[in-house]
């Protein structure tokens, strides 16, 4: 019984620590979320709902505030488009997309494309698109993006990567 209690306590501490980290990374403090009165305007305008998926940013916010677990496969974590409709309509202008981005980064949720994007920035200080496409080639081939290439011909241009001086 003592062991179980210790485990529960340990899990709670971990979740609290994780949530604190996410909130901090997004540039907020926990108490900043206390202004949210649960009006759910964010939920009513969220683009993810247009995908026929129930998405409620307010619920995600209160989970972080109350120290509850947010699942890795939460619809907003998977599908937030960074449209800022929630922020625009929120009476407090809470930047939910940025909290979700912090959540993804803290939990290491990253697509091959995102990894390649950051890889290019690390090497050159800029995104070099041919590198990004090469690095995500297996994913893009597997997922059938190749069929869109005829539509993308106008996007092709040739330039060598440029490594910037200084940060």
């Amino acid at each position, binding site marked *: 019984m003592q062991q179980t209690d210790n485990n529960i306590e340990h899990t709670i501490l971990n979740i609290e620590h994780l949530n604190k980290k996410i909130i901090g*990374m*997004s*540039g907020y403090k926990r108490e900043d979320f206390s202004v949210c009165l649960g009006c759910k305007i964010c939920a009513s305008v969220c*683009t993810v709902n*247009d*995908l026929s998926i129930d998405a409620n940013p307010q619920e995600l916010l209160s989970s972080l505030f109350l120290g509850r677990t947010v699942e890795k496969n939460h619809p907003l974590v*998977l*599908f937030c*488009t*960074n*449209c*800022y*409709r929630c*922020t*625009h309509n929120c009476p407090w*202008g809470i*930047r939910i*997309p*940025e909290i979700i*981005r*912090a*959540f*993804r*980064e*803290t939990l290491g949720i990253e*697509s091959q*494309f*995102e990894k390649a*994007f*950051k890889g*290019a*920035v690390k090497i050159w*200080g*800029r*995104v*070099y*698109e*041919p590198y990004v496409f090469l690095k*995500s080639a297996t*994913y*893009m081939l597997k*997922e059938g*993006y190749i069929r*869109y290439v005829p*539509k*993308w011909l*106008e*996007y*092709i*241009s040739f*330039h060598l990567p440029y490594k*910037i*001086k*200084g*940060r």
Partner: protein
Amino acid sequence: MEYGYYPGCSLTGSAHRLNSTTKKIFKRFGHDLKEIPDWHCCGAFEYGNKNELTDFSKSNLKKAHGFCNDIVAPCPACYKNLKEANQDDGGSFSILHPLDVFEYFDIVESIDIKHDLEGRLFTPYYGCVLLRPKETAIKNKDIMENFITRFGGDVDGEKVKDRCCGGNQFFINRWATEKLSRLIIDNTHGDLVVFCPLCHMALKTFSENRKVIYFNDLLLYVMGETDKL
């Protein structure tokens, strides 16, 4: 007048057309765009650490010190990130989007019309970050409509002009982008007019036979710089 210029990564690659047409229009109005030397990627929406993301743009502002006072950034993501970093830094620069500068040029009144848009239908589509959040949004949220109607064109798509095309999910959950882009495409008519490279790609990919053009192309057509739209 001379402006500092922050093209951003996509304008050096897939959005090269937005880059060349922006430069052309500024030049046509007698303004110079001077590229900030060794600018760094703004980080777009790919970084979860707010400080890390803001620092990218702050370092760009540092590089612009003594180089310019006004910075033009055509890519909506770059524009938003730069503007936020500038606000955070005390606002010593003016971060401008070309649409705001065009308003200042008073293009609607000052253009010598070579081709009008009579009898043509367009859907001006702004997408997300040009209009949101409020602190970084462009000033005139109807500038594309004003321009099109002034030159005789008709506009459609008022209800979806600020909806999301899902471009940000394009290389993660393509079906989501397709569904969101189709909501815009299927509920509008005429050529889709955009200013964002990501919106351009998403709408073009799923638009079947609808034309997707940059607003700059429309401007250059009316000004007679190009004969075909």
